[in-house]
């Protein structure tokens, strides 16, 4: 045997495996970079606004302090929480359905949540159910109902038809918004206005009271989605192969369904329909860090928070004294992104 064979073999493998980052360092590097983005967004969105943040005024003026701590800080934090929720759910749904265009909005989950929450607002915003605001429960129920319908329609045997999935999602959204309009027309004037303002997707929050209720729903949902990211990594490459690699498809399906509805339900109840965050953020993350879902989900979580904070800063400042709903900003940016992806998608014929 040639003495060079062994040497060549050795150099071949050692060279190639040294170039591969398979460990935690890849995840940590990615998380570090998105965290920098998050901190940047946080600072920007705390500073900009109708009144730019003035630190000397903040120290002296009582009113400025109240404005900052009771209005701007909660709003920025809420934007972060909603962005993190929508971003991570989007990343999970895309992997789960093997469809790069899936996200809470396009799958009708947001629409269903909106309908449920509108109903709750029409009955009375402030009603609590055992301490939990009824809008949360109603939005969760609506989201769960809508996604069950969409999923049932698009599943045939053991495959999910990608075209039907999106079409069913869009139609469920339309039906839901028709329901919302019906509720608006029959509800009294102030309630109707409340619903209208809220459906476009605004982030209005005063104080921190509601945060604890939100976390009651969000923390379990976030936790489940992050833990499932390995199963979703395998699911993204095909259901059969995932199952043969040991993924319990049924359990994974139920957990993703429950967690997504929980998280999206609360996000919708607090922020209205903020469209396309779950689309733009995971795609941006994938573009930079690659396709590994075990990276994409946690990074989308953090990057989503940063993204929505920035979008909200734009919404607050772009028209000067008038505040735009953040949903309008994400819908414009995200709608264009969606169309661009749709165009690129034709090559893979996923639709």
């Amino acid at each position, binding site marked *: 045997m040639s003495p060079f064979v062994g040497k060549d073999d050795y150099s071949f493998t050692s060279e190639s495996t040294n170039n591969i980052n398979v460990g935690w360092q890849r995840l940590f590097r990615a998380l570090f970079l998105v965290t920098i983005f998050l901190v940047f967004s946080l600072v920007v969105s705390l500073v900009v606004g109708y009144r730019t943040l003035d630190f000397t005024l903040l120290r002296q003026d009582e009113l400025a302090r109240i404005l900052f701590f009771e209005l701007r800080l909660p709003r920025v934090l809420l934007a972060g929480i909603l962005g993190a929720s929508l971003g991570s759910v989007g990343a999970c749904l895309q992997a789960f359905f093997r469809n790069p265009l899936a996200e809470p909005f396009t799958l009708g989950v947001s629409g269903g949540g909106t309908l449920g929450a509108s109903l709750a607002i029409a009955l009375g915003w402030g009603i609590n159910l055992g301490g939990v605001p009824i809008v949360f429960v109603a939005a969760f129920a609506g989201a769960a109902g809508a996604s069950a319908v969409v999923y049932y329609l698009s599943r045939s045997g053991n495959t999910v038809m990608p075209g039907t999935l999106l079409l069913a999602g869009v139609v469920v959204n339309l039906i839901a918004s028709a329901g919302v309009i019906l509720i608006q027309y029959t509800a009294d004037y102030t309630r109707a206005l409340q619903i209208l303002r809220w459906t476009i997707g605004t982030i209005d929050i005063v104080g921190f009271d509601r945060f604890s209720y939100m976390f009651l729903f969000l923390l379990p949902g976030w936790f489940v989605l992050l833990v499932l990211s390995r199963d979703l990594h395998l699911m993204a490459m095909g259901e059969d192969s995932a199952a043969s690699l*040991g993924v319990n498809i049924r359990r994974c399906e139920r957990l993703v369904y429950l967690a997504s509805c929980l998280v999206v339900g609360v996000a919708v109840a607090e922020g209205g329909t903020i469209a396309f965050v779950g689309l733009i953020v995971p795609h941006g993350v994938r573009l930079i860090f690659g396709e590994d879902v075990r990276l994409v989900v946690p990074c989308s979580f953090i990057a989503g928070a940063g993204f929505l904070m920035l979008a909200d800063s734009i919404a607050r400042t772009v028209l000067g004294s008038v505040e735009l709903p953040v949903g309008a900003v994400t819908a414009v940016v995200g709608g264009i992104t969606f169309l661009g992806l749709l165009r690129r998608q034709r090559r*893979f014929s996923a639709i």
Partner: protein
Amino acid sequence: MPINKKNRLTRSKVLVEARDITFTYDNEQFVVKETSLQIEEGRLVGLIGANGSGKSTLVRLLAGLLHPTSGKVYFGGQSLTRISKQCLARSLAYVPQINPMFFPFTAFEVVLTGRTPYRPRFRFENRIDAEKALNALDRVGARSLAYRPVTELSGGERQLVAIARALAQEPKCLLLDEPSTALDLKHRAMIVQILKSLREEKNITSLVVTHDLQLIDTEFDQILAINQGSIVDDGTPLDILTESVLSRVYNDPSIHAYQIDGRIFVWSGN
């Protein structure tokens, strides 16, 4: 007598077994009907049958991806329902018939998932796993594809990547559903050659589902023939790949079969 490379006349252990399994999607049409089969360890087995005869469903039942409506599937003497999924994934690998890919994962990333059954949930694959994945790609002759996005690969190349993933799983048993459909002649022969050498080196059992009878030669240990959801014939290649058996299996009286140098040539028509 079957042609044996090693002395395999000694009684070997049954690895995969199905007892009276029936499968139906809607309780009306049986896709698999009261079928039993046994595959011994270290055997290279072919499963043949006409289109729609239930081949794919049967192999999915054996892989535990579908659960039989009645009857039971056993792996290594244990009922599939009693083996944990992770445990099963370490000894049984399944290569799906079609591998549609919607995200541009690299081929290496796809093959690396074959190592998942050996990793705890919160651990990434390590360098050893990476090396095993690359070796698996090497074995199917697809090392050069390692860093190409799978969405840009051809159907045949994707099939090779799927087979490499199954090899990276280091299973005791491989179930391949139509592995040759998108492959060219050279790679077809290579796949069968890989399965044969796995059998010789590590006593690995393989079940190849195919309608492509050219894939099968006399070095296969056992051929199962399925018709309308039931195994109708079970024997050596020389027993099964004859005109009389094949015309019955395929319901086609115009089948011709010839043997030349341990290869069997089959065609239909005049």
